[in-house]
C-alpha cells in the first residue's frame, strides 16, 4: 500500500501506475462527511459515499487524479493496492 501512497498523480508515469494497480481507499473512522472530496472530484463521483461505507473507489471512471486525496483535510483518503478488502458492499 505504501508504494502506491508515494506515487504522485501529477506525474504521468505515476498516474499510469496508479490506474493500473491502485485505487482510492477510504477510512470511515477519519471521515466527517464534509464533502470536500465530492466537491473537488472532476467527474462528480460520490467519493463521500464510499468513505461513509468504507469502500474503495473501483469505479472505472475514476481518473486517479488524486484531487480528493489531496484535498481531504483529515487524510481519510489515500491510494492503495486494489484488493478484495474494500469492494463496495
Amino acid at each position, binding site marked *: 500500500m505504501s508504494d502506491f*501512497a508515494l506515487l504522485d498523480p501529477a506525474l504521468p508515469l505515476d498516474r499510469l501506475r496508479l490506474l493500473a494497480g491502485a485505487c482510492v481507499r477510504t477510512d470511515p*473512522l477519519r471521515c466527517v*462527511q*464534509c464533502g*470536500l472530496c465530492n466537491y473537488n472530484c472532476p467527474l462528480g463521483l460520490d467519493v463521500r459515499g464510499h468513505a461513509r461505507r468504507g469502500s474503495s473507489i473501483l469505479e472505472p471512471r475514476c481518473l486517479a487524479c488524486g484531487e480528493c486525496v489531496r*484535498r481531504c*483535510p483529515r487524510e481519510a483518503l489515500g491510494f492503495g493496492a486494489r484488493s478484495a*478488502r474494500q469492494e463496495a458492499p
Partner: protein
Amino acid sequence: MTRRHVIIGSGIAGLTAAETLRERDPGAEVTLVGAEAHPFYSRPGLAYLLAGALPERQLELRTKAELRALALDRLVDEVTALEPEAHRVRLRTRGVLAYDRLLLATGSAAVAPDFPGATLDGVVKLDGLDDARDILRRARRARTAVVVGGGATAVELAEGLAARGVRVHYLMRGARYWASVLEPAESALVEEGLAAEGIELHRHERVVGVDEERGRVRAVRTSSGAVVPCELVAVAIGVRPRVELARAAGLSVERGIAVDAGLRTSAPDVFAAGDAAELRDPDGGAGRCDVLWSSAVAHGRVAAGAMLGEAAALDLRPRQNVMRLGGVTTTVVGAVGAGDGAADDPDLVAIARGDSERWRDRPRGQAFHDRGARFRIRAHVGERTVVGAVVLGDARAARALAHLVRAGTDVSALGAGLSADPEHAVAALVALGEAAEQREASGAARA
C-alpha cells in the same frame, strides 16, 4: 404491531439511528424532531465552509432520493417536555407525540462566555449552520476579529476568519495551544502554522471586557491592559451536552445523560446518543464524554439496535479524531495525557468539539518521539501495546499508529529494542502498524 420510534435531534447520531431503524425494521414508524430546519448537514464541515473551501450545499449529507427512501417523518419543532411514564413528548407547536421507543440525540451547545459584554451584537460562537452563516455575513464587513478559546473550534474560527480576509488576534490564556493534549513541540507546530496564515497569537492574555458602540462590539480589553479594536469576538471555550429535557423529566444526568453500553438511560424505553450521552463507567468511576463524529455515528447505530430489542453494545476501543490545526493534519488516539503536567487547558471550561475526555488519561509506559520541520510523532508504549499516539503532519504514521492503538496489537516483540534505539522506535512501530494493517486486510479478504 408497528413500533413508533421517536428521535429528538437532527445531528449525525439522530440521522444514523433513523437509517439503522429503517434498515432493520422497514415497517416501523420513525419520527425525527429537531429545531433546525436545514437538510441534514456535516457539522464538522462548517470549518471548511467558513474557510471558503466548499459551498454550503456540499455539506448536505444525503441526496433527496436517499431521504425519500428513508421515509422519515421529520418534524421541525421544539420538544418542550418529556413524559417517560406516559411514553410521550410535548412539542411546542404540534401538541403531543407518543412513542414506544425514544432516542435523545440532542447534541451539545457552546458554553457562553462570562466576560462583561459577552451578549453584545458581534460576540459569536460556532454551534451549527445558522452560526456559520451569521459569521460569514459579519466577516464581510469586519476588519478585525478576536478569537478566544481552545481545541479545534477556536482554531477553525481563527483560520476561517483569516481566510475571509479578516485580521485575527487569537488570545490564549496560557503559554501555548491545547496544553492538555499536545506537548510543547506539537503546540509549536500548530502555532507556526497559524502565524503563517497571518493570525496574530497573544499568549498569557484574556478578555476582561468588551466595549460597545450602540450595542455592537467595538473593542476588546485584555488582561494586559491592551485595547484591541474589533468588530467580532469569536468564542470557543467548550461545549456542554444538552440535557435540559432529560433532567426535567427526572432521568439520571451527570454532565451528560447517563447511559450504559447499550445507550439505555435510567428511564424505560428511553435511549440517548451522541454528544448528549455520557457513558457510565462500568467500574463505578466518573463517566466519559466524547464530542466526536465517529462516536456519534457509532452511538446512533447501537442505540437503534437497542431500540429494536437487540443486545447491542458500544465498541469501547480507544477513540480517534483527525483535525486540521494551523494547516497541519493532526491525529489523536488513545491515552496521550497532559504533555507538561498541565491537568487542564486554561482556554477551555469544558470539552471541545472534536475532543475526547479519554485522551486526557496519562499514559503508562514510555513515550517515543520523531520530529521534523513539518511533522511531530509521539507514541506511548505500554507493557505490550501502544496505548496512545499524537501525529501531526504524517499521514502514513498516523494510520499505522492509530491502527496499533485501536486494535491493541501486541508490540512486545519489539521489546527492549525500542528503548535501546529510541531514535528509530517510531519508525519500527509504524512499520509494525502497517504490517498489522495489511495482515488484517488480507485476512478480511480471505474471509
